[in-house]
C-alpha cells in the first residue's frame, strides 16, 4: 500500500467520516481512496471548488461532530492557511495531511520537498502553537494519521501531517491492526447543562470541553478574539487570555505530544536529527557509521511541532555534533541550533528538493564530524569502559 492510501486507511480507522478536498499532486491518492471508501462507511466525500473551501468545510463538519480531514500539497496548503487559522482560534479538531512537494509556488509538483516545515508552524497569521507530525514510511502514514486524529480531538486543534512526495507514493507493507487494538481519543463533552456551559473555559490541562452543533448548547463560535463564553472581546486582556490558552495547551502538554525515535543514542557522539523521508536516509547512514566503528546516533522527530526542545538541550550538552539533513535550504535546523544553544556545533545537510538525500551524503558528514579533533573511536571507548567496569568491580 502506498503512503497516501495508508493515510486514508489510518484516518478511517481513527473514525474519520468526512473528507473535503481538492485534487493536487502528490496528495490526490488520499482523496481518491477516500472517495471510494467513505460512502460505504456512511461518510461523506466532497470534492470542493478549491482548498479554501475544503478547509472551511472540514471545520464545519468537525463542528457538526464528525471527525474530518483534508489532504493537500504546498500550493493548496498555502490556500488552507486562512482557515487553519480559524481552526486554531476556534479550537476545532481536524487533520490536514500535507504531502509536500518542492516549492516555492508550483515548484516541482511530482517531486519531493520538505519546504513547508516553517509554514506549518506559523503560516497562518497571528501567534499560535501547532501540532505537526512527520511520517517517514507508509506504515507511519497509517499510524501517525490515527495519532493525528487523537491529538486533534484531545487538544482541540488542527493537526498537520507533514508527509512528502516520496513517503506518499512509496509502496510498502502496511500492517493494519485489528480494530479493538487501535486506541482512539474522542473530544471531551461538556458535563454541565446548556445554561452553565462556557465554551472556552478550560479544564486544568488548558483544553475546554467541546459542545457540537445541534447538541442543544447553542454555542457561538467566532474567529474574533473571544472570551470564555465565546463572545467577541475587543480588548487586550481578552486577547492575552485567549492567545495564552492557545499556546499553553500545547506547550504545557508538550511531553505528551512530542515523540521521537532515538537510535543508538546511549553512547552517541555525533547525532543526526532528521524527520520524514530524510530520517530514513539518516538511519541508513547512522547504521553504516556504526558498522565503521563511529559512535553515531539518530534522533528521528516523529513530532516536528512542537519541537523537542528539552531533549535537544539535554543531548547537546553531551554530544560532539548535530547533523540535520533536510530537503530545503535549512528550516528545522534553525530550531535545532536555537535549542543546542551553542553547546555543540550544528551542521546542515541541505538539499533543495527533487530527490531525497543520499545516505552517503549524511555518512560523509558523520565521518567529517568524527574526524575532527579529539574524537574517540568506538574501540577505544569500549576499552575505556571495560577498564572502568573492572575498576568498579575491584572496589
Amino acid at each position, binding site marked *: 500500500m502506498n503512503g497516501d492510501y495508508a493515510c486514508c486507511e489510518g484516518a478511517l480507522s481513527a473514525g474519520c467520516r468526512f473528507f473535503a478536498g481538492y485534487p493536487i499532486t502528490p496528495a490526490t491518492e488520499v482523496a481518491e481512496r477516500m472517495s471510494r471508501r467513505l460512502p460505504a462507511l456512511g461518510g461523506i466525500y*466532497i470534492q470542493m471548488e478549491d482548498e479554501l473551501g*475544503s478547509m472551511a*468545510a472540514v471545520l464545519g463538519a468537525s463542528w457538526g461532530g464528525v471527525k474530518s480531514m483534508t489532504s493537500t500539497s504546498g500550493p493548496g496548503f498555502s490556500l488552507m492557511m486562512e482557515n487553519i487559522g480559524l481552526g486554531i482560534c476556534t479550537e476545532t479538531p481536524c487533520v490536514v495531511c500535507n504531502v509536500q512537494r518542492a516549492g516555492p509556488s508550483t515548484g516541482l509538483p511530482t517531486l519531493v520537498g520538505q519546504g513547508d516545515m516553517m509554514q506549518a508552524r506559523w503560516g497562518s497569521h497571528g501567534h499560535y502553537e501547532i501540532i505537526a507530525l512527520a511520517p517517514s514510511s507508509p506504515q507511519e502514514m497509517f499510524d501517525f494519521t490515527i495519532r493525528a486524529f487523537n491529538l486533534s480531538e484531545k487538544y482541540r486543534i488542527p493537526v498537520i501531517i507533514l508527509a512528502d512526495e516520496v513517503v506518499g507514493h512509496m509502496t510498502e507493507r502496511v500492517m493494519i491492526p485489528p480494530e479493538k487494538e487501535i486506541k482512539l481519543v474522542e473530544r471531551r463533552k461538556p458535563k454541565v447543562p446548556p445554561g452553565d456551559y462556557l465554551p472556552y473555559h478550560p479544564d486544568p490541562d488548558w483544553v475546554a470541553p467541546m459542545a457540537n452543533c445541534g447538541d442543544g448548547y*447553542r454555542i457561538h463560535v*467566532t474567529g474574533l478574539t473571544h472570551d470564555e463564553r465565546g463572545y467577541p472581546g475587543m480588548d487586550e486582556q481578552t486577547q492575552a487570555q485567549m492567545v495564552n490558552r492557545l499556546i499553553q495547551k500545547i506547550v504545557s502538554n508538550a511531553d505528551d505530544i512530542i515523540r521521537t525515535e532515538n537510535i543508538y543514542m546511549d553512547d552517541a557522539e555525533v547525532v543526526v536529527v532528521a524527520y520524514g523521508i530524510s530520517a530514513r536516509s539518516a538511519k541508513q547512514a547512522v547504521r553504516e557509521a556504526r558498522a565503521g566503528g563511529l559512535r553515531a546516533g539518530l534522533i528521528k522527530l516523529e513530532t516536528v511541532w512542537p519541537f523537542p526542545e528539552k531533549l535537544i538541550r539535554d543531548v547537546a550538552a553531551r554530544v560532539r555534533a548535530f547533523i540535520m539533513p533536510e530537503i530545503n535550504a535549512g528550516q528545522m535546523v534553525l530550531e535545532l541550533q536555537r535549542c543546542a544553544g551553542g553547546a555543540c556545533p550544528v551542521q546542515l545537510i541541505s538539499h533543495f528538493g527533487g530527490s531525497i538525500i543520499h545516505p552517503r551524503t549524511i555518512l560523509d558528514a558523520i565521518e567529517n564530524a568524527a574526524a575532527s579533533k579529539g574524537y574517540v573511536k568506538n574501540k577505544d571507548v569500549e576499552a575505556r569502559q571495560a577498564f572502568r567496569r573492572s575498576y568498579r568491580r575491584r572496589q
Partner: protein
Amino acid sequence: MTNKKATKALPPHPMEALLRSERLPHIWCAGCGIGTVFSSVIAAVQKSGYDPDKTAVVSGIGCTARMAGYIRLDSFHTTHGRAIAFATGLKLARPEIKVLVVSGDGDLLAIGGNHFIHAARRNIDITVICVNNLNYGMTGGQLAPSTPFGAKTTSSVSGCPEEPFNFCYLASACGSVYVARWTTLHTRRITNSITEAMQKRGFTFVEILTPCPTSFGRRNKMGTALDTLKFYHERSVILNDIDPRDAPVDFGSKIVVGKFVDKERPTFIDNYQLVCKTDIGDWPDFDGTAVSGSQATR
C-alpha cells in the same frame, strides 16, 4: 449606574428566546437595515417551526456577518467569504440540522463567489440570506460587486467604473431552487420569503436590498436611511415569477423585487445516496435512463 438600573427595569425583549440579549447593544449604525433583516430572520426561524436546537447560522465577515453573534442558535462567525463552504461541511456532516447562511454581498459574492456558485450547483441544502447594502460597509464604504455603475465609494471617488452583478440571476443560473429579492421595506415579505426558503430542500437564496446611510448613502446623495426607504418605496416593483435576468437592480428606473424561482431539484445528499447505492461501475448511465430528478429523490 442609573443606566444599568434603567436597563434592568425594561421588560424582556419580545424575541428574547432567540436573541443573545446580553450582547446588546449591537454594532450596527443608526438607520442600517441589517437590524430589520435580523428581526425577519429570527421571526422566520420561529415561524418555520424548526427546532432551534437543530438550527444553525453561519456567517462570514462584515457588518451582516455579525448577526451570528446576536442570535441564540448554534452560530458560526467564520472567515471572509467562506461561510457557504463552512456551512457545506456542517450540513453534510449533520443533515438533520437546518443551516442558514447570513452575510453581506461582498462576503458572499465577491470573495466568496466561488463557493456560492458551486454550492448552488451542487444544491447543498442551505438557505443563503444576502444583505445587499451596495458597498463594503464595515471597512468604510469601498466598492463592491453590487455597487451601481457610477456610484461614489471611498475606493471610487469619481464613480464606480464597474457594472454590478445581478445576484438573483446568478443564483438562478447556478441552479438555486428558490430565489427572491426584497428591500428592507418589505419586512413581512422578507420574513415569509425566508420561512419559505427554509422549508424548501436545496440551495435557496434571498437577497435583501438594505440602506447603508453611513457608508454608502451619504456619498451618493441618498439622504437619511428614511429617504433611502422612501426611494425603495417609490422605485420598487414586485414582479413575481419573472426570469431574474429581466430583474436587474437599476436605480435609474426601477428596482424589481419578488420571488423569481421556486422549483425542485435533488440535493447533493439525494444524489450522493443515489449514486453511492448504485454500483459505481454502472455510472454514468449511457443507455438513455440518465439520473433524473424523480429518480434522485426517491
